[in-house]
């Protein structure tokens, strides 16, 4: 039995039944990380000492009869989550030696739930991108083919899960940063409703959009993690007071009578192989009792314009605190992409342009929110491809300042509307690269989209297929 292939649910069971110890489990993952990191570069910082200490502590607690939701479970956390005493770079050299004195709320909740921290995963610097190629610590590689990108910005997180370097990962999505890399790496990625999971301590990208969430091997694992992460946080004024349901309670119920919406615009320009796999998956859902309904949504291209303006504006302001006075490295350490975004955001907020850009984008955002609301009067969920293509080769993002927006065209509308969404693997291309489908739900419909995803996963358990990780091309 190889411990590193265990899903979260399986690992928990073995820990609870004392078949394995957390130290054994942690050691297996640390070993795996050590073995694969030269080829994958999924981590910016690995924390073996911290991990083994956490694991020993978890084992002691379990021996004392203490039971916690994630007791002894090794996890990786994206490097934009503040971790007290552990450097947090957001994959930018500006924060190369920044060690936060506090934990992000997500990290605190995970610690309280008993997790073991394996390390901090690589990402696009400041989460600016969909490839990890903007990371100052080098791009991560796709475990299914190391000549390809894992996607981003939570690329390291998705790769670490796909390569079994961790039980599960915590990522964050502004628009696509969980779902798109999950799709490219063939894993489950849940982007919760904006405000469902606290942003406190997450290095801010687009403050009105950022949503932390889990990336896991299986759907049930995502439900389990969301249970720990979700809930109002007194430290985040935008976190929602909406009650947190028990995400496991209805997870395994069927989807008889579920109404699924499909919009043709979301298949436009999508790679044939991706399209075919997603269409096949929709048929599977139909077979499971769902009815399919064609719906008309605003074309995703409007969302790109809105997203680009809002996000750049927020970025330009959020990164202003890195003024070269306090964080070690000065502003010259900002990469090309960060500089581009700061300049664009600064421009759109400038006197005389505010109404033309930012204010207009806010208005269109409201229109898009209403558009989805209208759609959800007729259907329960909307499904479609997560990304237009499978993982692109390394170097694809170079010189493409809108690379992220094109890779994320299908996830940006639901992101700017603050909706819930999940990616699940639905197939592989001929080249052996994973294909993902997204299930979009209304705000706070995590319970529902998890159930749909679970039902599909039972029919098509692609998690059984593991990448053979070769040496880098």
């Amino acid at each position, binding site marked *: 039995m190889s411990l590193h292939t265990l899903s979260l649910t399986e690992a928990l069971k073995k820990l609870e039944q004392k078949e394995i110890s957390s130290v054994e489990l942690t050691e297996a993952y640390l070993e795996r990380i050590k073995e694969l990191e030269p080829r994958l570069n999924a981590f910016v910082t690995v924390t073996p000492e911290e991990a083994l200490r956490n694991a020993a502590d978890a084992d002691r607690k379990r021996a004392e009869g203490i039971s916690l939701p994630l007791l002894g479970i090794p996890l990786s956390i994206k490097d*934009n*989550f*503040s971790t007290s005493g552990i450097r*947090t770079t*957001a994959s930018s050299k500006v*924060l190369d030696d*920044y060690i*936060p*004195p*506090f934990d*992000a709320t997500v990290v605190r909740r995970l610690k309280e739930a008993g997790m073991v921290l394996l390390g901090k995963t690589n990402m696009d610097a400041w989460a600016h991108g969909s490839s990890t190629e903007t990371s100052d610590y080098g791009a991560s590689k796709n475990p299914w083919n190391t000549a390809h990108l894992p996607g981003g910005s939570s690329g390291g997180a998705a790769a670490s899960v796909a390569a079994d370097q961790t039980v599960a990962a915590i990522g964050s999505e502004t628009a696509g940063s969980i779902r798109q890399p999950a799709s490219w790496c063939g894993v489950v990625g849940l982007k919760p409703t904006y405000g469902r999971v606290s*942003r*406190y*301590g*997450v*290095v*801010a990208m*687009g*403050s*009105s959009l950022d949503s932390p969430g889990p990336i896991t091997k299986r759907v049930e694992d995502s439900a389990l993690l969301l249970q720990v992460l979700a809930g109002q946080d*007194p*430290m*985040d*004024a*935008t976190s929602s007071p909406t009650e947190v349901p028990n995400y496991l309670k209805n997870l395994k119920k069927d989807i008889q009578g579920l109404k699924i919406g499909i919009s043709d615009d979301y298949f436009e320009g999508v790679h044939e192989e991706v399209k075919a796999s997603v269409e096949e998956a929709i048929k599977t859902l139909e077979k499971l009792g769902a009815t399919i309904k064609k719906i008309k949504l605003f074309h995703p291209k409007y969302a790109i314009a809105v997203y680009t303006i809002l996000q750049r*504006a*927020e970025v*330009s*302001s959020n*990164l*202003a*605190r*890195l*003024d070269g*006075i306090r964080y070690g490295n000065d502003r010259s350490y900002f990469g090309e992409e960060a500089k581009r975004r700061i300049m664009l955001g*600064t421009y759109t*907020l*400038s*006197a005389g342009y*505010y109404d033309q850009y*930012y204010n207009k984008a*806010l208005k269109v955002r409201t229109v898009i929110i209403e558009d989805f609301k209208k759609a959800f009067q007729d259907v329960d969920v909307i499904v479609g491809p997560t990304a237009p293509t499978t993982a692109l080769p390394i170097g694809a993002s170079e010189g493409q300042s809108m690379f992220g927006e094109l890779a994320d065209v299908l996830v940006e509308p639901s992101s700017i509307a603050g909706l819930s969404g999940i990616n699940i693997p639905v197939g592989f291309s001929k080249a052996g690269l994973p294909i993902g489908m997204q299930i979009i739900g209304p705000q706070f419909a995590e319970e529902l989209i998890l159930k749909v995803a679970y039902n599909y996963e039972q029919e098509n358990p692609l998690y059984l297929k593991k990448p053979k990780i070769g040496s880098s091309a």
Partner: protein
Amino acid sequence: MNKISNNHELQPTRYVPVIGLEVHVELKTESKMFCSCSTQYFGKAPNSHVCPVCLGLPGALPVPNRIAIESCIKIALALNCKINEFSKFDRKNYFYPDLSKGYQISQYDLPFGYGGFIELKNKKRIGITRVHMEEDTGKLSHLELRDGKASLIDFNRSGVPLVEIVTEPDFEDALEVKEYLQKLQQIVRYLDVSNADMEKGEMRLEPNISLRESSAKGLPKYKVEVKNINSFKFVEKAIEYEVKRHQTILDEGGTPAQETRGWDENKQRTFSQRIKEDAHDYRYFPEPDIPPIITLADQLSTLNSSMPELPDAKLERFQKEFDLPYYDSEILTRDKAIADFFEEAVTVGKDHSISPKQISNIVINKKTDISSTLPAELIKNILDEKKILALDEGELESAIAQVLIENIKAVEDYQNGKEGVIMFLLGQTIKKLGKKVDTELVREQLKKELKG
């Protein structure tokens, strides 16, 4: 020659000063505007009152202080403002080392209060443009060290709640400004939302000054802002200085530069700090970390009903209710604590037929220390003095008669012109009476007897 000089003397009437004010008031909430750090930073070790939020560390988020918002709305209500039911915070983006996030959380187009006024004694109304909430910055100190210059940043003040009160350019002289400021200070103290202590920087003033030709309409095309003034007296002097300075420049055909100036108390003059070429572009946009603040009608009416009686109303009531002259009422209501003390003393005094005017006389003339005296004690003191006056006449006469008999020698001395000896006889009489008495009364009676 004479004529020219005369002309020059007359010239002040050619211009009317146009003065507006920006006042920052630091609230006395327990915790800061967006985090739970203590606001009691004054005199504390640098950077000892800080956390990830007020240090602006990556990922830290602001959570607005409800008490501070309520205090801001109370100030707005007290200044006769309309309240924006839908309000929000905005980011004001600019770089400065004392600004931990690279932006200040402030309010742009939807301040909590707008369109109010303060009425001066002469019934002139000074328009209040807006009352908004923002956060304070850290503090820089520039040092000369052995190996060069250094600037140190103390973030203890970072995030302390500030209310900014902006007026219309309605002031025409320094005295109006001074009266307005005293009144504003009095109001925020009445509301108990700020100590507004100028020396501690809890109230900061920024007048902007220009002159227009008395015949011209509209605002002048320049404006001079004076910063870093820490007393009402200095603001008066700075405005007077500026008015004269502008006048001289205008008389010579020039236009004063659009700039920010500081006040130098030692040299008794203003000095240029920064030339403002264009309005700074702060790239305001709605603070995405804080949802809009909605003040519902019933919340507003709760706030309204929690408002204390304000100085103007109290002044009027004191005159009416206690039949006091304006002079007394004005002095008694300057400080709410004194007004409260007075009213309580009036209530106690009522049972002993002591009039409000009697109490007012004592409080004002004797400058009663209200921190060490209770209103009831004040009344007791008044009553004690009254008791003395009510000394029995027969008792006094017989005491004096006895003393005079017992001290014939002294009586003779007195009658022979050694008038100082009366002090001895006075002492003996008081001793005989054996209680606290009105010395003056005894002395007068003694004199009468000695003469008789």
